[in-house]
C-alpha cells in the first residue's frame, strides 16, 4: 500500500536496468526500504542493479522479461503480482536507435516501434488489468519530449514515444475510476548510457533529477509531468511554431 506520506512498499520496474527507473526506485527507497521486482533480460547489469538496491535495504527479485517477446508479457506481469500488491509500476524500457538507420532500414524501424510502442502497450494492458483488480496503485510511463513534436533528427524514436504517450494518457482516464493513477513523464535530454556521445540539448538533465520528478508525480498523483519542469513551457511554445520555421531551428 502507498501510505499517508506517499511512500510505496513495493515497486515493479519494467526495464530493470533503466538508469532513470533505478534512480526512481532508489529515490523511493531513500525514505523506506522496498520490495522491488526488476524485470529485464538476465545480464551482468541486472545483477549489478540488484546488488545496488539490496545495499539500500531493499528486498529485490528479478524476473526474466524480454520486451520483444510479446506473448510472454501476460505471464511476466502475472509473476510480478504473484507475491502481493504492487504499489508502483514503472514502464522504463526503450531504445533510442540511430535515426538515419531507423528510417531507412525496415527491421531496425520495426524493432524500435515494437520495443518502444507495441511492448509498452502490451505491458500497459496487462498491468492495468492487475491494478484495476487491486483497487489502488500508481503506474508511471516514461515518455519523452521527442514525442510531443517530431524533429528530423530523431523522428522515428519520437513517433514511438508519441504513440506510447497517447496510449498512457488514455489509460490514465480509463484506470482513474478504479483508484489507479497513471503518470506520463516527459523527460528532455537525459545524460544516460542511451545518450552517451550525443550532443546534449538545452535543459538537459540527469536520471536522479528525473527520478525526483517521478517520486513527486506519484506522491502528488500528477498525471502528466515534464523533467525538468520548465520544458513544459518550452514545448508548449515549440508545438505551435510553424513548420517552415521549426525546421530551421537548431534543435
Amino acid at each position, binding site marked *: *500500500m*502507498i*501510505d*499517508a*506520506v*506517499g*511512500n510505496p*512498499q513495493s515497486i515493479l520496474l519494467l526495464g530493470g536496468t533503466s538508469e532513470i527507473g533505478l534512480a526512481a526506485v532508489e529515490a523511493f527507497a531513500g*525514505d*523506506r526500504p522496498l520490495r522491488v521486482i526488476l524485470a529485464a533480460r538476465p545480464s551482468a547489469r541486472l545483477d549489478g542493479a540488484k546488488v545496488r538496491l539490496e545495499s539500500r535495504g531493499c528486498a529485490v527479485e528479478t524476473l526474466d522479461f524480454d520486451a520483444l517477446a510479446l506473448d510472454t508479457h501476460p505471464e511476466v506481469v502475472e509473476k510480478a503480482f504473484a507475491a*502481493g*500488491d504492487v504499489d508502483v509500476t514503472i514502464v522504463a524500457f526503450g531504445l533510442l536507435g540511430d535515426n538515419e538507420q531507423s528510417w531507412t532500414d525496415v527491421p531496425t524501424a520495426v524493432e524500435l516501434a515494437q520495443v518502444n510502442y507495441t511492448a509498452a502497450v502490451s505491458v500497459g494492458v496487462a498491468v492495468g488489468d492487475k491494478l*484495476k*483488480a*487491486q*483497487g*489502488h496503485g500508481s503506474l508511471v510511463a516514461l515518455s519523452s519530449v521527442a514525442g510531443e513534436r517530431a524533429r528530423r533528427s530523431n523522428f522515428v524514436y519520437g513517433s514511438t514515444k508519441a504513440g506510447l504517450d497517447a496510449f498512457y494518457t488514455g489509460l490514465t482516464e480509463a484506470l482513474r*475510476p*478504479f*483508484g489507479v493513477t497513471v503518470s506520463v513523464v516527459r523527460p528532455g535530454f537525459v545524460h544516460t548510457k542511451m545518450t552517451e556521445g550525443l550532443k546534449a540539448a538545452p535543459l538537459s538533465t540527469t536520471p536522479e533529477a528525473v527520478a525526483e520528478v517521478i517520486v513527486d508525480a506519484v506522491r502528488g498523483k500528477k498525471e502528466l509531468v515534464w523533467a525538468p519542469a520548465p520544458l513544459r513551457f518550452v514545448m508548449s511554445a515549440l508545438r505551435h511554431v510553424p513548420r517552415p520555421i521549426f525546421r530551421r531551428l537548431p534543435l
Partner: protein
Amino acid sequence: MTSLPSETRALHGWGRTAPTVATVITPRNPEEVAAAITSAGPRGIIARGLGRSYGDPAQNAGGTVLDMTGLTAVHSIDADSGRVVVDAGVSLDTLMRRALPFGLWLPVLPGTRQVTIGGAIGADIHGKAHHVVGSFGNHVEAMTLVTADGSVRELTPDGPESELFWATVGGMGLTGVVVRAVLKLHHVETAYFKVDTEQIDNLADLMDRQTRDDEKYAESVSWFDAVTTGEHFGRGILTRANHATLADLTSKQRRDPLKFDAPQLLTVPDVFPPGLLNKLTGKIFSEAWYRKSPTRMGAIQNITQFLHPLDIIGEWNRGYGPHGFLQYQFVVPLERGDVIRTVLERVTAAGHVSALNVLKRFGEGNRAPLSFPKPGWTLCLDIPIGPGLGALCAELDAIVLDAGGRHYLAKESRTTPEAIRRGYPRLDEWRKIRATVDPEGVFASDLARRLELI
C-alpha cells in the same frame, strides 16, 4: 458477489490521505452482513463505521467494504443496571442522546462522538478517563460477531470464546464483523462536568502537575503549544474534571440536569488550499488557544465545552486542505516521560506545525492483545502532510519504539510492519486466534496489508 445493492467508490480515512477504491455494501441486518461476508471476493471484506479512523483500517482496495451505518437499532436500555443492547452501526452520539434521559453515561468517550459501537470495539478506543475506567472493551459485556464462514457467535469477556472476544477488541475488524453489543453504562446525576483548568507555562511543570492528584479526577487531559520555543516550550492547558452532581449546578441548569447540549454550529466547506496551517497560523492558533483558557477551578461545563470542542464544527478535517494530514499518536511507559519532550523538539526543529497536541496519562491496559493503551504517557500530534514528514515520522518511530512505546492503529497511517511487531509483542498470539476463525483470510483491509497484520 452478493445480490445486495452495491456501489464502487473511493474511500479514505479522516486524514484524507491514500484513498483506494472498493465495492461498498450497506447491510440492514445481521443476515445481510453474513450474506455479504460469505460472498466476498478474493480481495476480502472489512466493516466501516463513520470513517473517523485517520488512516486506512476501514478501506479495502479492490475488495468489499461493509458500510455498517445501516444497522441502527438501540434494542434496549435498562436504567437500573445500566445495561444497553445496541447495533454496531449506532454512533456514540446517538447512544448518548438515547441513554442520558435515563441518567446513563458512556464511560469511554474519545475526542469525537462520531464513532460507531463496532468501530469503538474494533479500535478499543479510549478517552480522557482512561486512568480510571480503562478503554471501551472494558465496558462490553457481550457482543455478537459474524465470522468468516457466516456463522454468528455470542462472545463474552470470560465465556468459552473469551480469546476471540479479546482478539476482536482492538482487532481492527479483522476477526469478523461485530453486529450487536451489550454495554454497561455508568450512572450520572447530571450531564455536566465540574472542571479545573490550569494554564501552565512550560512542559516540565505541565507534566508534573498532570502527574500529581490525578486520582482525584475522573477525566484528565492537557493540550499544549508545540510552536512556541524557548523557556515557554510546551506551555499548555491542563484540564481535569469530575462529573458534576446536582448540588454543583445552578438553579437554571438544575431544571434539566441531563440536557445533552451538543450542537453542531457549522460545517467546514471543502475549499481550503494546502499549507493553510503554517508556522504563522499555527502560532496565532496556539496563542489564542492558550489565552482563551486562564486558570479557573470548579467551572461547570457541558459536554461540548469540556470533551468535544471540535464536534461543534463538522468536517473540520477539510481545514487541512486537499493533501490531508496525519495524526501521530503513541504511548511510552510512565518512566519515559522524557520522550514527550524529545518528540516535540524534533517536530519543532524539523519545521512542522502541530496545532492540536494532546497529552494524557493511561492507566492499566486490558487483556486484548492489540489494545493500544498501557500504563504511560500518550501524546497525539496533528500534522499536515508536507515534504519531509515521512522521514521525520520514521525518526520519531525509532525514538518511541526504543523507549518501549507503540503506535495507535486507529490513528496510524504510515509506519512499518516492523514498528507494529515491536510495539505489539502479542501480535503473533492475536494472529493465531484470528487464524482459527478466518483461516482463508476473508477479512482484509488496507491497514492490514500495509502493516502485514494478516
